[in-house]
């Protein structure tokens, strides 16, 4: 690894804290990403394989 990526990967973890809740920014990003994928899976239309067969 070199350059900005190496610098970025070697930074200390940043933690967010609200009372007893503590989460690292990294984990928060992963959790938000999972929520996003879940939402997209519910609302994105599924490709219809039969479309090409319609007469």
């Amino acid at each position, binding site marked *: 690894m070199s350059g900005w990526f190496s610098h970025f990967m070697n930074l200390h973890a940043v933690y967010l804290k609200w009372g007893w809740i503590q989460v690292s920014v990294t984990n928060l990003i*992963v959790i938000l*990403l*999972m929520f996003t*994928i*879940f939402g*997209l*899976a*519910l609302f*994105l239309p*599924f490709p*219809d*394989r*039969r479309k090409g067969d319609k007469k």
Partner: protein
Amino acid sequence: MSKKLWTAKVREAWQRNLPIEKLLPDTQPAYVASWIYVFGVLTLAAFSIILISGLALAFAGPAWYHTSSFGHWVNSLHFWSVQLFFVFMVIHLWGKFWMAAWRGKRLMTWITGSIAFVASIATAFTGYLIQTNFDSQWIAFEAKDGFNSVGIGAFFNVTNLGQMLLLHVAFLPLILGAITFVHVIMVRKRGVVPPIDADENNTKVDSK
């Protein structure tokens, strides 16, 4: 009338409970055509990559995967497949929880899925413990404190590298694989759960 052999009894029970048409179907209900239904099989795909890369790591050993470029790559493939495995499994869990997937005699499907989830955590945890780096040392001693504080620290020693290595490569994957197998068989036996407002006997979609 002659008494039936146990083989015949097993065969008949199998055919009654899980006919081959259910085990290897070529049609699925229309409601399955949704992205939320792909996360179970994505989890299985990630699990397959984990098993294959894990076998490579086990056979070639740390002298290979800690030193050579290709070894590092396979080690990373193993690690990142686990990250994807958990992402897919948790989204699969959310989807099934919110559609109350235990409906329609699917309780055993739900329970085996839950056990597989817990077994996955145990397998991943022992995997983290055998990285033989500062991360694994930190995780082991934090976990040791945690297990001691709830009174189960005497049953197994998470700082014992050999014990954790064997649990990770020999015991836990077998348990997880067996539970996953039963889970998939239950999915085939009971069918894929319909959304809450959908008809169980929804129009079939031909997969051909």
